[in-house]
Each structure stands twice: as C-alpha cells, then as structure tokens.
C-alpha cells in the first residue's frame, strides 16, 4: 500500500512541471545567485570598487599614491570629471563629495595639502579624508586597506627620507658615514621606484577588462591603523541612526508587494474557473475594463501596503518618513503601479491558480534576489549589478534609496520613474494581449 501511494506521488510529481521547478530549479537558481553575489567567480576575490580621488597635495608622494591607486585592480579610480569627448577637469573635494552623495561612486579619497610632510597625526600631516556613502559600508573598508597598501609601496624612497628626518629630529643628526650609506640606499630605492612607476603605468593601462584583484585580508578598520592617518567622513551626515532601515523597508516591502499582487491577480484565474469571468464579460464590462479595475485595485493595495510598512519603520525604527514624504509618495505610487501590472502579467500568462502560485514564487524570489530585495546590490559583482538592472524592483529600490539616503529631489528620480513607467506599460500591454484568450474565440 505504501509503495502504491509513493508511486502515485511520484507520477504526480513527474507530471507537475511547476512542482519540479520548485523542487529542483529554484534551489539551483538561488544557489547560483547567492554564490555569484557573495563569491563572484572566484571565492577569493571581491568586486572592484569605484572611487573618486582628489589630489589637493600635488606633491611627488601624492602623485605616486594616486598612480598606485589607479593601478590597483581592486579599484576603479576617477580623478577627473567632464563629459565624454570633452576636456576633463581634475576633481576637487566638492565635486568628489557630490559624486558620493549622488551615488555615482561609493567612496572618494581626498589627499589633503601637506600630507607629504610626514607620517602619522603626531607629525602634523593632515589626515586623508575618505568620503563615504553609508549605503555601502563595504567599499570604504576596502579602499582604506588598499590606500594603506599603496602608501607603503608607492614611494618607499620618500618614506625612508621622511622617516630619517623624523629620526634626526628626535634622536640627533646622523653621522657623515651613515648619511653616505643611506644616500646609496636611497639611490637603489629610486631606481627600484622608477621601475615600479613604469610597471604601475603599464598596470593602469592594462587594468581595464582585467579580473578583480584579491581582496586584502587585513583591511584597515580604523583611522590610525596604517602609515597614513585617515578620517572617514559620512557625506550623508551623521544624523541617521539606522541607515539600513530604509533599504530593508523598501526591499522587503517590494518583495512582499510582489507576492500580494500576484495573489490578488490570481482572482482572475478563480473567476475563469468559476465562470464568473464569463458572466462579467457578458455584462457591459469588457476585458479591458476588467483588467483596469484589477490593476487599479492592486496598485491601491500596494500603496497601502508600502505605506503601512514604512509607517511601521518610522515608528519602530526611526525611519525619516515625514522628511521624505513627497519622494516616498511618488516612489510608492510608481512602485505599486509596476508591481500591480507585473501581477496581472503573471496571472494572465498562467493557466491555473496552482501554476500561478508556483511560477510566481519562483519568479519573485529570483528577481528579488537579483534586484536587491534580499541583499544590497552593491555587494554583488559588477556583472550581477548590471543583470539586476534588468529587474524592475531594482529600479524601485534605487528610487527609494535615492529618496531616503541621498535626499534626492523629485526631479532627480526621473530615471527610476521613467524605467518603472516603461515596465508598467510593457507589462500591462502584454497582459492585455494574453487576456485575449478569454475573450470571444
């Protein structure tokens, strides 16, 4: 008897493609996505970090430091700005900060004037500033580590000279013989450095298209843990107590909105099964009217759901909802609209409620992973981040992050709103075409 029942279960599974996909394909898809996100193609590498570098010092040392940073395969360094094909202007601090604030780069390095005079804060050298975007807590740590590495390797001859000057200042002058020996060593270091400079230039030229470098195993975590002092500056201000709340409110909110809307859109299939759709279509309401009614309802439901989610975030976790009410309202409306249209698309593409349930679970989990609902996209490799942009929820999340992290004005949301609108129109049009099968045959 047990064997018979097991056989029935096996035959049922073998004939249910959705169940097979949930059993085998979904875990593999998730494994692939998580592996790609957290490990890249090589377990020992981290994705390349974009960084703006401002050289206010203009010294030989700072020049070499910039070159070393540019040559590092773990970094994508920008030192100038301007449109393509036009003359490039070197970055200044304000421009670099704006780049970070706008989310163009997650971190900027400002090499201050006078940094070459010595090492360590005790010598009066001003600290290097690391302008960071708290929405990406990983990038500043990586850049800080690579900066300290570059500081050690970019100009060893200058570092020796500076160190000896400090030594003489506190211990008395060196003897003539000692000076001669050091001069000879300095000559060797200069030759080595010249060769290193040449290698760095080659490396910088060859870097594009190369693989990310191995991540530093022991990145500097504090401002005083390396040869040069570093001060980390949060360009978004220090006022945010729970900087990730907005991200997770949006991420979780959008993901569950997807489940809500596909579930609500499933009523269409219930109506097909019960004959109610037939009855509605014989009334004065046509298919277009029916779909619009369902879309409006689901979009309104979505607005309500996100409002509840963010209100709870504001009450329980101090999410600054009231300060960003206009941006929140706009992003919520557009996000709910696109998710509602996605729900209709999935429902009209499905033949049965069970199929809708299975397919929507798979699709929602995959696009939520790719789009950044489960973990921030900045943790993903460059390739995965680009793939994520193919999902509409990534654009919705970017919009919410712009509103809550970058204090973006409404007009600055136009790229996200444009893409979300395009997705909405495309989904609705496709859903309408798919729904033709329920009209007069």
């Amino acid at each position: 008897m047990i064997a018979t029942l097991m056989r029935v279960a096996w035959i049922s599974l073998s004939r249910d493609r959705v169940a097979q996909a949930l059993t085998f394909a979904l875990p593999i898809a998730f494994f692939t996505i998580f592996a790609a996100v957290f490990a890249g193609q090589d377990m020992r590498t981290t994705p390349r970090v974009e960084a703006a570098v401002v050289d206010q010092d203009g010294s030989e040392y700072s020049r070499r430091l910039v070159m070393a940073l540019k040559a590092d395969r773990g970094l994508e360094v920008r030192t100038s700005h301007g449109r393509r094909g036009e003359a490039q202007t070197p970055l200044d601090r304000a421009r670099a900060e704006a780049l970070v604030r706008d989310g163009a780069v997650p971190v900027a390095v400002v090499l201050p004037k006078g940094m070459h005079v010595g090492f360590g804060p005790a010598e009066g050298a001003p600290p290097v500033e690391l302008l960071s975007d708290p929405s990406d807590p990983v990038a500043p740590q990586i850049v800080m580590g690579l900066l300290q590495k570059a500081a050690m390797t970019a100009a060893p001859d200058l570092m020796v000279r500076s160190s000896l000057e400090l030594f003489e200042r506190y211990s008395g002058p060196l003897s003539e013989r000692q000076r001669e020996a050091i001069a000879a060593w300095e000559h060797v270091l200069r030759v080595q450095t010249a060769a290193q400079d040449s290698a760095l230039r080659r490396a910088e030229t060859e870097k594009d298209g190369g693989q990310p470098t191995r991540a530093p195993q022991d990145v500097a975590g504090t401002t005083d843990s390396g040869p040069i002092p570093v001060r980390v500056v949060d360009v978004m201000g220090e006022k945010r107590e729970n900087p990730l709340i907005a991200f997770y409110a949006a991420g979780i909110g959008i993901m569950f909105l997807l489940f809500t809307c596909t579930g609500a859109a499933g009523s269409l299939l219930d109506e097909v099964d019960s004959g109610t759709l037939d009855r509605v279509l014989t009334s004065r309401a046509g298919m277009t009217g029916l779909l619009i009614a369902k879309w409006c309802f689901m979009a309104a439901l979505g607005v309500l759901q996100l409002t509840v989610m963010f209100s709870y975030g504001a009450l329980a976790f101090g999410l600054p909802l009231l300060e960003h009410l206009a941006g929140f309202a706009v992003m919520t409306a557009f996000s709910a609209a696109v998710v509602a249209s996605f729900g209709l698309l999935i429902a009209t593409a499905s033949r049965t409620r069970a199929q809708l349930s299975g397919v929507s679970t798979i699709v929602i989990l995959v696009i939520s992973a790719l789009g950044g609902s489960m973990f921030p996209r900045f943790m993903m490799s460059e390739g995965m981040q680009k793939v994520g942009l193919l999902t509409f929820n990534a654009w919705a999340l970017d919009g919410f992050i712009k509103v809550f992290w970058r204090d973006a004005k409404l007009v600055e949301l136009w790229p996200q709103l444009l893409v979300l609108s395009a997705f909405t129109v495309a989904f609705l049009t496709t859903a309408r075409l798919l729904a033709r099968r329920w009209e007069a045959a």
Partner: protein
Amino acid sequence: MTTLQVQTAFKTYGKVEALRGAALELGAGEMLALLGPNGAGKTTLVRAIAGRVRLDRGTIELLGEALSPASPRPALGVVPQEVALYPLLTARENLEAFGRLNAVSGSRLRERVKWALEWTQLAERSREPIKRFSGGMRRRLNIACGILHEPQVVLLDEPTVGVDPQSRERIYDMLSGLRAAGTSLLLTTHQLEEAEARCERIVILDRGLVIASGTLGELVRKTIGDSRDVTLRVDRPPRTPLVGFEADGADTTLRARVADVASDLPALLVRAQAAGCTIEDVSVRSPSLQSVFIHLTGRELRE
C-alpha cells in the same frame, strides 16, 4: 413575435466542427429547451448567442437586431451552468455587483435587489457570504444575478443541475414567473423529464445541427409516429422469444411498440399467454421525450 433568431451557425475549432448550420427561433414569453448529447454543440451555440464565441458563419438576431460578439446585449441575460458568483460576498452584494455591471444603479438597483431576494426566498439570509449557502440557494441566486437587469431573453445553462427536488421545483416556479412576465427563456438541459414537462418547444441538436424541433407531440409524430409503448410484467420469462416484443429471454418485463392499441394490444396479450406467461400488469403510454431523443440521436456514447 420572435425575440431570438439564430440562422445557419457554423463554428469550427481546429478540425472539430462544433456547429454545422444550426438554427433556432425563440418566441416572446416562450420557454424553449435546447437538448443534445454531450458534444452536440449546445454550449457553443449558447456562448455564441452570449457573445462569448465568434461564429465562422451565420447570424444571430436579438429583438430584430443582428449581433456581433462585441455588440452590447442589454436585452440578454445569461445564467451559466457554474455558480458564477463571488463566494466571499453576501447575496445582496453579489446582486448589487452584477446589477451594476449590467448598468442597473440607484433606486432601480435597490428595488431590483429587494425583488430578487424575495423572488429567490433569500431575503432573510441576504447579508451572509454565499459560501455558507446550500447548492439550491446558490443556484437560485445564480439565476437572479442573470436577470436582475430585466432582460427580455434569458439563456439558462443547466439551471437545476445538482440540486434537490424541492430546489428544482422552486427554480421552475421562478422561471414560470419570468415567462408569465413575458421573458423568453432558452434552456439547455440533460433533464429530459423537465424539458418535457416545463418547456413549450424543444430543439434537439446533434453534431452541430438541429435535427428536430417542435412541441413534444410534434416531435413524437415526426419521429416515432402515433404508436404507444406497451409494457407487460409477467410472472416468468417466456419459454420462446416473442415476436413483436423487445424481448430478452430472461426478463419478466416485456416491452413493445404498437401502432394501434385497440387492435394490437389483445394480440400481444394472447402471444404472451401462449408463451406460458401469466400477465401481472399492463401499461400503455405515449412515447416520452427520452424515446424521441434516443430515436434521433442513437444510443452510442459521444464522449
């Protein structure tokens, strides 16, 4: 006056010819039964009238106006075979929803909903979600939702399927009320006794064609003629097969069809007694719709 007219309706699905020139007429205040074996084309024809199927050829006229699938049909009510209602809504809410979808609103809607609740005898439970209703209650509400906008023609697809005899009686009482008010009803059913008892005219559809139509008497005359069915119950099976009977040797019920009862029946009785049987009971009756239906469509399964 003809309220609904279908002429030479053709519809093909792939290689399957669902309709091959079907035609029918429905008069004002008439209840017409549309019968046919499974796959005969009844559902396709009804869906075409409702605008849910696009005919390849043929015309449909409602109250004298030619219809296309996209034409509005305010004069048509549709009662599907399924209980096509919103289960989480109450009876009143369902009536209001389908009323509004059929452009009934305001005070007229309130009046019609009140009337429908009384008509269906659901007034006392009008505020309960219909998922708690019995099958018969849902069926009655299903009909009410289809006629709330006071259509002149109503299509009813198996309106009594799956309900108990009391609910069936109530439903036919409701339909009789509609007929009395001048509404034309086109009823598809497999309940031949109901069609025989309740409908004025009968249309039999088979393989996409109307193969017979008329009153029961007309159908009998056209098919079987004026013969009568005779049934004898005997004490034992006849010793030898009896000429003129639908006999199977082991049965104690003997059936025969006679053209003239007065002359043929005594002969049958004599033959049965000569075969050693004692006659216990005799019944004579006109051929039923079932007989006509089987005569016209045969006994083989169509599925």
